[in-house]
């Protein structure tokens, strides 16, 4: 049976397509540059602090929390400024990342307390959110980067030492998050 759309449904689809196109234009790489540097900085920083024999070096991980709070406050204010509350797709992506981040912090806290490495779950959750965002805004560079990150999350299962994990996560942060961010930012500035 032929699926016939009402004119309201047709307009809704057109407007969603316009929203996607607008998000492609406004897609800033700064968030990726910031988080790529945060992840790489904390991972390499933790590695060197451990190697230097600093006590309670793991406290450097608290910087993730600081970075997450900073990101949410910054993007909440930006979304209000741009009136993105009306943009369904922007709202959807915002909610998705909020849920993912809450799950990251809860699972990381629980797994560390159970004596397990949480890197796999963290990277897996980030890669899923990353891939869905990339598909929604239709950015192929982000799709490729998120698939690499997804594969990277599984590779962490085969890394046995903390040092190996830290180095690997630092490299993943630079390759899968920082570099695509730089690419997006250059593209946006050209436009």
């Amino acid at each position, binding site marked *: 049976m032929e699926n016939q759309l009402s004119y309201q449904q047709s307009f809704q689809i057109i407007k969603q397509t*316009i929203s996607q*196109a607008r998000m492609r234009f406004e897609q800033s790489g700064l968030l990726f540059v910031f988080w790529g540097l945060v992840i790489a900085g904390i991972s390499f920083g933790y590695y060197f602090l451990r190697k230097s024999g600093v006590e309670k070096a793991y406290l450097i991980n608290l910087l993730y929390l600081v970075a997450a709070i900073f990101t949410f406050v910054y993007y909440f204010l930006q979304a209000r400024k741009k009136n993105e509350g009306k943009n369904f797709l922007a709202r959807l992506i915002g909610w998705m990342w909020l849920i993912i981040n809450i799950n990251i912090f809860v699972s990381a806290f629980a797994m560390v307390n159970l004596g397990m490495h949480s890197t796999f779950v963290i990277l897996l959750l980030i890669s899923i959110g990353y891939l869905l965002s990339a598909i929604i805004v239709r950015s192929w560079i982000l799709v490729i980067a998120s698939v690499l990150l997804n594969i990277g999350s599984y590779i962490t299962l085969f890394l046995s030492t903390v040092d190996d994990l830290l180095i690997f996560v630092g490299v993943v942060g630079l390759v899968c998050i920082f570099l695509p961010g730089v690419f997006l930012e250059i593209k946006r500035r050209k436009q």
Partner: protein
Amino acid sequence: MNYKELNPLLHSPVRLAVMSYLVANGDTDFKTLQKELKVTPGNLSVQLRKLEEAGYIKLEKSFRGNYQHTNVRLLPQGLDAFEEYVNTLQQYISVKPKKSDSDEN
């Protein structure tokens, strides 16, 4: 109710098709557009030039081997114009007929 005028530049079928294609699919090239919209190269060239003059798109010419390649890129101003066109059209369509009008029909 006051009706806004539909943007005459986007009111031509080929130009509207070009803009719709770019909004939905992102940047493309001349050959793909010609193939997808089934228009002659001459007609497409003329319409693209009009859209470029209005600042809605950017045409980037380069060479690939011995062949000229034209990349067609949607500009933010073009997206704004397209959105306004859609909103205006929606405004036209969503007007409900008065009772007396429908009674007459």
